């Protein structure tokens, strides 16, 4: 338009948050040492009320969110979960329940379905009870998970099983895939650990060696081929760890581009790890979701690319990976503006190389890990 004095020509157009992750609680009966919750989660006990969550869901849907995740912690510990599921369905969300399966029973599985839940993802820690229960820090977890996976299938949900993979279970890929096939899974997520939260704290004890990873990936590819040949619809999703890449991932598809997480206490985040950054994030108790997403300094902090230092600033791949992950940059370099050190162009890439070398010689057992529980969490904020 003529006469326009618009100076925001270079500002990126902000699309709506299409994905909303509702972390309903940090409470959880399991103690997985790679939990993505903050180390000091036990400090945040003030959970949003049912009414506050309903308001978040309504605002998110109005802005365009279509995918909704209920996670935590263990979302099942929230007694109002059935109400939130019903509200989500009525609003038109596709709702996903991300659960350990503990606290679930066949009655709830059916009741959630009747309330309109679209999908239940059950997480496992291993393909056998001994290792599973050791990692989860719970003696009965495995049997319960098996029973709940079957109940989910029986109720007619798509079955998605998630396994977090690390150096202590990465040798089980074939067994894990066989187990999933027996259970009739539709999707299997084999997610190698990414190092944030508790997993960063326990990185040396979790990170697989390059040799372990190569072997695991070959096993997955082989089974994938066999499944395809047999006409199976079971889909294997193998998430390779950042630490073995030479280019960073396009984290969250860009900061504040699609994903909006609301933490148990109402803090709104561009991703579920961002709480660890030295940035002030808004809270849904104080601000509308609309102003949080479009106007808050926290969400605008890393939009676009004008914040980038070198080597990202002049890099021809910056539009593809957005400089990688801000949390990883912060954890490994102390400054979240920096290039994600996963990138071989990063001056701090040697941190990644050192972690790989350490993984080749790591000897820590499961007993050496710091398990995610309130007692250990308090160690991180006790003065």
């Amino acid at each position: 338009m003529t006469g326009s004095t618009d100076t925001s020509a270079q500002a990126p157009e902000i699309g709506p948050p299409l994905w909303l992750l509702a972390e309903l609680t940090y409470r959880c009966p399991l103690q997985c040492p790679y939990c993505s919750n903050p180390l000091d989660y036990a400090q945040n006990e003030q959970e949003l009320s049912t009414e506050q969550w309903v308001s978040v869901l309504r605002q998110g849907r109005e802005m365009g969110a279509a995918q909704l995740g209920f996670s935590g912690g263990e979302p099942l510990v929230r007694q109002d979960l059935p109400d939130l599921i019903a509200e989500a369905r009525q609003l038109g969300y596709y709702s996903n329940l991300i659960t350990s399966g503990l606290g679930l029973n066949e009655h709830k599985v059916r009741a959630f379905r009747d309330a309109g839940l679209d999908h239940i993802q059950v997480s496992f820690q291993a393909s056998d009870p001994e290792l599973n229960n050791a990692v989860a820090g719970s003696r009965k977890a495995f049997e319960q998970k098996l029973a709940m996976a079957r109940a989910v299938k029986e109720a007619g949900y798509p079955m998605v099983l998630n396994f977090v993979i690390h150096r202590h279970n990465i040798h089980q890929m074939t067994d894990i895939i066989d187990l999933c096939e027996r259970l009739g899974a539709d999707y299997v997520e084999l997610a190698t650990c990414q190092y944030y939260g508790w997993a960063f704290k326990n990185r040396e004890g979790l990170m697989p060696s390059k040799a372990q990873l190569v072997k695991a990936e070959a096993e997955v590819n082989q089974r994938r081929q066999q499944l395809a040949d047999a006409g199976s619809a079971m889909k294997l999703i193998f998430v390779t760890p950042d630490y073995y890449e030479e280019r960073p991932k396009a984290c969250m598809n860009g900061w504040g581009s699609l994903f909006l997480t609301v933490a148990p206490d109402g803090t709104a985040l561009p991703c579920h790890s961002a709480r660890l950054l030295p940035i002030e994030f808004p809270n849904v108790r104080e601000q509308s979701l609309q102003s949080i997403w479009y106007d808050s300094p926290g969400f605008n902090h890393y939009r676009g690319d004008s914040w980038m230092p070198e080597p990202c600033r002049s890099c021809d791949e910056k539009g593809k990976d957005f400089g990688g992950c801000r949390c990883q940059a912060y954890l490994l370099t102390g400054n979240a503006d920096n290039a994600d050190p996963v990138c071989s162009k990063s001056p701090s890439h040697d941190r990644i190389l050192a972690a790989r070398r350490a993984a080749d010689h790591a000897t820590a057992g499961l007993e050496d890990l710091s398990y995610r529980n309130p007692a250990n969490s308090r160690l991180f904020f006790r003065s």
Partner: protein
Amino acid sequence: MSVQVPRLRPGFRFQWEPAQNAHVLLYPEGMVRLNDSAGAILAEVDGQRTVEAIVATLEQRFPDAGPLADDVMHFLQDAEQQHWITLS
């Protein structure tokens, strides 16, 4: 003409999203934004009607588009390969 009946797989939901000005297909932790023709075809998939009946409906709705059987079948086969739908 095909008497096969296309059906969305369990866990898939098809709906109109005003914010995206498009039909989308939603599934566990995933979403596909559909173009106009894919949206128009999937809108007719109800688990009851045959491909033949769907083609007839679409040809009636879009008389200027000419014969649509090949395009529709091609899309549905592709959707089957993606495991969005079953054809039986």
